């Protein structure tokens, strides 16, 4: 099978370096998702692996072999483009058969593969149509089918679902997950949608500004973000991040900002006077009747029936988001007493690196 290894990959367009030295291991059969904000270099990295862009320096290995100088055509990969890149003048069948004809397979073999893939993707009825006569979701399937039939060493997807509407996106997401369990190839998938990343990936690579911020399993990233960026990027709604200053308070510390002081036990690496950002996910803030950590006022409450999102403000703090199960009946202007769950509290130093992910109770 096929593993893909990137070693110190750099890419410049003219004088501008857009990828600043990326190392990455993709194990054989793994589903890896590149996620990050727009312009962070996800597509560029994927195209480097595909062989559509040359690296400025560094090494790309596919299945142990250095492929830096190998043409895209010889790398044995399949790519699904954001625009689908279907050949408009060919029928669905021809589109799917095109890549196979390159490898001079016998007709019957091609026919069998195309029909199998079409069956699997439920596009058999459209085999004789042109792409123009298909819906977005159907085109997407054809694009995926075109990749599947070739039995590639690895699949590369560049935001394949971003042109679909929300409902279809969820459906296709499930199908992709199913597809991966069924055919089990190495897959690299680019998206800027962190829900897609969380649900599909064995391993997520968070990119920002041409650098890897963190690599890990989805829940790893969620539970133990290594820095403020990952903490804020993974999870929806995003983690509440509050910049504070540490002060000593009894045996422990107190994270202070404006009128708020969050008492925590002593943490190695934080001294009084340090700038500390604390992060707390919306579901880890609770309403309390006892001594509150934060006194806040509701600005908006979103009732979804099964759960409630509450957005509130507290003096001197950024907006705070709460995610509560069930129906919490509050409305704008109501005062809230908030308690922060210390076991799920994340602390980041002035450089943005994580100091602690969860404190002892």
């Amino acid at each position, binding site marked *: 099978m096929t593993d893909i290894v990137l070693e110190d990959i750099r890419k410049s367009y003219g004088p501008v370096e857009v990828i600043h030295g990326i190392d990455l291991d993709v194990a054989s059969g793994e589903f890896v998702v590149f996620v990050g904000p727009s312009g962070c270099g996800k597509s560029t990295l994927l195209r480097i692996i595909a062989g559509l862009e040359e690296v400025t320096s560094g090494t790309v290995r596919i299945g142990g072999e250095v492929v830096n100088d190998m043409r895209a055509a010889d790398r044995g990969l399949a790519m699904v483009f954001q625009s689908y*890149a279907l050949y408009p003048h060919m029928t669905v069948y021809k589109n799917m058969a*095109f890549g196979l004809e390159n490898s001079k397979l016998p007709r019957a073999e091609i026919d069998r593969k195309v029909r199998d893939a079409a069956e699997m993707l439920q596009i058999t009825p459209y085999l004789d149509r042109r792409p123009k006569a298909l819906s977005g979701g159907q085109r997407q399937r054809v694009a995926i089918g075109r990749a599947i039939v070739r039995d590639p060493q690895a699949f590369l997807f560049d935001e394949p679902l971003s042109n679909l509407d929300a409902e279809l996106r969820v459906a296709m997401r499930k199908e992709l997950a199913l597809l991966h369990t069924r055919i089990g190839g190495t897959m690299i998938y680019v998206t800027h949608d962190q829900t897609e990343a969380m649900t599909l990936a064995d391993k997520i690579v968070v990119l920002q500004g041409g650098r890897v911020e963190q690599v890990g399993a989805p829940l790893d990233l969620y539970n133990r973000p290594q820095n403020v960026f990952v903490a804020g990027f993974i999870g929806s709604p995003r983690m509440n991040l509050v910049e504070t200053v540490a002060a000593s308070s009894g045996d422990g510390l107190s994270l202070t900002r404006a009128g708020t002081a969050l008492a925590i036990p002593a943490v190695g690496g934080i001294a009084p006077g340090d700038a500390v950002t604390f992060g707390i996910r919306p579901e880890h803030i609770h309403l309390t009747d006892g001594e509150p950590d934060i006194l806040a006022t509701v600005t908006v409450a979103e009732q979804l029936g099964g759960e409630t999102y509450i957005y509130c403000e507290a003096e001197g703090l950024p907006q705070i988001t709460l995610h509560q199960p069930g129906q919490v009946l509050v409305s704008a202007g109501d005062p809230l007493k908030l308690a922060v769950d210390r076991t799920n509290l994340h602390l980041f130093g002035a450089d943005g690196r994580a100091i602690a992910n969860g404190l002892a109770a």
Partner: protein
Amino acid sequence: MTATLKERAATLAALPVEFLFRALETPLAFVQRLVGVRGMPWVFLLPNLAFFGIFVVIPLFINFAFSLTGGTALYPSDRVYAGTEQYAFLFDCENFADPITCREDRFWKGIYNTAVFIFFQVSFLVLFSLVTALVLNMKIRARGFFRAVFFFPVLLSPVVVALIWKWILLRDGLLNAFLVSLGLDKILFFVSPEWAMFWAIFVSIWAHMGFYTLILLAGLQAIPPDLYEAAEVDGTSRERVFFRITLPLLWPNLLVVIVLALIKGVQIFDEVFVLTGGGPGTATQFIVQYIYNTAFTQQVQNFGLAAAASVVLGTVLFVLTLTQLAVTRKRDNG
């Protein structure tokens, strides 16, 4: 500061326009009162319609009327009705494939020459334009410069083009000077029928290629680049990419180019007339030149016959134009 200066300049530049509009307001309002709001579009179209009518439509009918008359008189009232006699004369042939067996052999020689000319000129014109467009569409150095260079001859008047090449090709022209400097003999290009035809074709390709290259280049650039990337990742060879992706997607543009080149080819006259004068003999005399000679340069000015030949030529062009419209419509509807 600069902003206010700019603003002032803009106001100043707008003054004449404003003045013009003010000046037009009263007469236009008056006209509108006369013809009503619905009549106004016609008023705006009138100058163009009048021009088109006087210089195109009316001559078309006059020409047709002339083709049904005989004699050498210029004024229609002096001409004698001859029915389809002129057409019968043109088409009086024993064997249409062989101009010499026709009564009006110069007409058929013109058609024959035009056919030969079109066959080679259109094939090579399309081929060269396609190759040039493909090259100019690649990431080459100084691409903008080369695009301009290839388009430049299109801007020249046909007469200028012909004169430039005449200087090059004459007995004491540049090319012969070059041949002599290589120790070769001079070639009298305009004395040999084959050379004359060759250069007629060559020069007209040189002059028009830029235009067709531009159309094809636009077509090439309209092909989404990710189709090529998809094909590349799929391991497609360059030839297969060209024949299975580029060519089919470029085909509508190519068809437009072919039909346009045919239409222009049928009408070939000015640049070759200046270059070779139709000679040697009638070797490069084309159908339009036949019409021109018959009507204006012969001792006996045979307007009726020229008009009849024009009608025949016009019919051919009409059919080609319809084809071109159909092709364009098909392309634009995808």
